[in-house]
């Protein structure tokens, strides 16, 4: 079978500096455009320059992380996969004992006011890298034993992160791992079997793992009007915001839902509702297209990766990026339960921005280190 893989390489004339800095220009431009849109939307959602400045500073840190990781050879990244995973795991365990918390969740490690980070974020990169490393030590596709080992390797950190509690991040860690196994060619039998198992395990999950407020969120999805001033409030208000935007939206800074404080969390997880209200259907479709284009570019890079490790990792990270989008927009528009997942590169919030841009750094490393 001779497939012309090069046909998808979309050879872009690369200028000298981009090559020297190991940057993929189309991807970089799209990420930068997205970040800019994010800052504009954030001003409207928060109403204060303060948030915009802080977010811009975090984006700056994120782009530095991107730049640094892009310089590494994928072989170096492969070499560090296991140590990073192990250290990340230790940190996640430490959070449970010596972590610092905010608003009922303990997610932070470090010294308050000096340097703080969320170890769970490390696992978003560490888990897929670990799995890609593990799977590429043997021949693909993985056998049943390998698949089980992989599942265990992403369920352990996910389980620990759920304890913080941070369901959104745990789901993203599991998703990133599953994508790597999927791309590695896991047998369809296993996939089918796994899905059946998941459906069968749901009642147990419901009874044993999910907390009361998480169950409430799932129930709310099906009947938000049941408790319109309580758990249904967010979802009703965000749908009203998006729906009242219509085709063209109410105009920048003119969204009554967002600006009159009907919309809670409008600058963090629910920011897409502000955009939907102010920029309308057209605006959101443009946004979705941009996300899809970024994902497409990431997958093209993955296909053209030099080795299987790079391909699996770049592909897995790109797909995880898209999961953010889908889960966030899905929850705000009312087709998924409310899970704390930010809209990538747009929602206000430091750590996710840095992790996402670091992931793009790894993807760029895969994109620009081609010659054997």
């Amino acid at each position, binding site marked *: 079978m001779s497939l012309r893989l090069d046909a998808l390489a979309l050879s872009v004339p690369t200028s000298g500096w981009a090559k020297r800095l190991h940057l993929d220009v189309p991807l970089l431009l799209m990420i930068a455009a997205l970040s800019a849109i994010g800052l504009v939307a954030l001003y409207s959602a928060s109403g204060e320059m303060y948030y915009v400045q802080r977010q811009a500073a975090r984006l700056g840190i994120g782009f530095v992380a991107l730049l640094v990781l892009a310089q590494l050879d994928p072989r170096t990244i492969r070499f560090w996969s296991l140590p990073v995973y192990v250290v990340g795991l230790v940190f996640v365990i430490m959070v449970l004992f010596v972590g610092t918390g905010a608003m009922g969740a303990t997610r932070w490690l470090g010294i308050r006011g000096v340097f703080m980070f969320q170890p769970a974020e490390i696992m978003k990169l560490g888990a897929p890298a670990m799995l890609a490393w593990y799977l590429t030590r043997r021949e693909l596709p993985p056998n049943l034993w390998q698949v089980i080992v992989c599942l265990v390797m992403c369920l352990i950190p996910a389980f620990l992160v759920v304890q913080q509690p941070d369901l959104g991040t745990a789901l993203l860690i599991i998703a990133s791992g599953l994508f790597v196994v*999927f791309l590695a060619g896991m047998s369809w039998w296993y996939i089918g079997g796994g899905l059946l198992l998941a459906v069968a395990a749901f009642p147990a999950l419901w009874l044993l793992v999910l907390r009361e407020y998480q169950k409430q969120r799932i129930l709310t999805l099906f009947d938000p009007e049941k408790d319109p001033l309580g758990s249904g409030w967010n979802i009703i208000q965000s749908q009203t915001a998006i729906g009242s935007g219509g085709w063209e939206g109410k105009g920048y800074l003119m969204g009554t839902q967002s600006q009159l404080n009907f919309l809670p969390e409008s600058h963090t997880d629910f920011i897409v509702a502000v955009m939907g209200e102010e920029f309308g259907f057209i605006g959101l479709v443009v946004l979705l297209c941009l996300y899809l284009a970024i994902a497409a570019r990431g997958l093209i890079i993955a296909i053209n990766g030099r080795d299987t490790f790079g391909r699996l990792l770049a592909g897995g990270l790109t797909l995880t990026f898209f999961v953010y989008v889908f889960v966030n927009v899905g929850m705000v528009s009312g087709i998924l339960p409310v899970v704390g997942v930010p809209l990538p590169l747009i929602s206000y919030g430091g750590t996710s921005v840095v992790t996402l841009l670091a992931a793009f750094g790894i993807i760029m490393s895969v994109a620009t280190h081609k010659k054997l």
Partner: protein
Amino acid sequence: MSIERFQDYAREQVLVFRRTLLAFSLIALLCVLLAARLFYLQVVTHDVHVARSNNNRISLQALPPNRGLIYDSQGRLLAENLPNHRLSLVLERVIDLDATLEQLTDLVDLSEDDIQRFHQQRQRPRRPFSPVPLKNGLNEEEIARLATNRYFLDGVEVEANLMRSYPHGEIFAHALGYVGRINSAERRSLDNRLYVGTEYVGKSGVERFYEEALLGKPGSQTVEINARGQILRVLDQTLPEPGADLQLYLDIDLQKATYDAFDGRRGGAVAIDLETGGIVAMVSSPSFDANQFVVGFNSADYAAMQSDIDLPFLNRATRGQYAPASTIKPFLGFAGLEVGSTSWDQRIEDPGFFQLPNDDRIFYDWTWRIRPEGRGAKIGMAQAIQESSNTFFYHMAYNTRLEGLHDMLDQFGLGRITTADVHNPARGINPTREWKRERHGYSWYAGDTVNLGIGQGFMLTTPMQMAIATAVMGRHGEWFTPRLLKDSSDDSLLEALPEPPPDVALSNPNHWQRMEEALVGVVHGPRGTARSLAQGIDYQIVGKTGTAQVFSIENFEDHDSDEVDERMRDHAWFVGYAPRDNPRIAVAVLVENGASGGRVAGPIARRMFDQYLLEAPLAQSGGQQ
């Protein structure tokens, strides 16, 4: 690389390629799903959501608490909250701003200032749809006119709120402080949950120190509102808790008499009730109208006041630091007596100057001129206090050495903050050897100790500190907690007041009486430096004058203070307590560039004593009759 291995590799590549394509198809599908959902919300059911958004009626609103009231020691209001109707504009709803403003000028009385301030506020960053105030204090007629024309005035709102008001804005501006609009830096540092719906925060003085207690706790209400933001129905309500009311020791009559006595001169004065230790007067002159900060200063006025060379915003009573000059002598006298470097019986010869051994420098003293015997008289401590002889204290300070002086001054609270609830007081300087080395890089010289002996050189004190030290002396060493707060509806504030510092214990308690005797002579003695105060008085004042050098004049044989430029003149001090037999009040008065403690600061102190001791408060005299 073997062929076999290469084939495996190619096979793997194809496998991953297929899976990636598959994954891409999947996410494209999910994207379509999201787009479909959005299409459903934004296009298909658009009308439903628009209707819902327009009728979006359930809104959670904050109910700001009423700020606590502040009373003087007799229960008269010092800070209150007055109902206010405010005209403001929601710019996002105004169609043509210029036209609207023009319409409004016909309906209400808008001054140039109002409009200018409005434009300033409009430029500042703010949340969209938040009202920008245009005019405070609408009267009934204006409200009625606005209500009639409501439908032609999109975006125009009249809000009812409470506004802080200071009935004695000028004379209490420094003591009480003021509230002002929360600025963006404060907005970030304050607890948003407590300040939701509150626009003002205490910026200085009592308003700042007791901010937490005065603020109260906000409530909230769930209300039904229409699309214009008007409340139709209250669904659920948690009432706010009003802030704690405060009663201060400050006395309006005494404060006013003191402020008036300054007659616009620069300076500060503090009075302390000796029985309780409460601060009954705290005046800084010149002053400003604290109400201006609530309403919002006209920016030109504010700039003018800020650049005013008289510094009206400076609280001279607590932040002004001055050399204590001769007012320090009684305290230094105690130091000498305790260390044993002098006694009440010791006499020294006063040749009109003092000279350190092996040093050319001469410390002059002109006190001999007022003595009939002229130069070379033999003087003791009591006389030195009454005439304010420098030579005696040069000698005594030199013999007592710095440590002895410093320790005694420290016991009287100088160079320290001893007030319980005064906002941001200055610490002053009670110098030590280490302090000088650190601050100036030089070691302490014997000449520095000599200078300290007359309260000059490195020593700095505030009128507040001098009043407290004088009060401690008036209580014969028994300390108290200097404070403003007399009573509060919140008991925890009273419990939070700190314990007083340890008492000043002299080895011979007789020293207190002897010093008192000497100080009575300052006012009532034949050669006392403040003998003019004794005219027509029927109680005895225990006091001390001071004249602090603003610039060095020690090397001029003669200087006429009238000819020195007004701002180069010496600062005038008077400290004292009265009446002698049953002391009730201690005061410290400083007049910047007042030149003479006895002639300028003394009369202000006399006015304060008279007010406090003679003009009994109405409430009490009424009770006695």
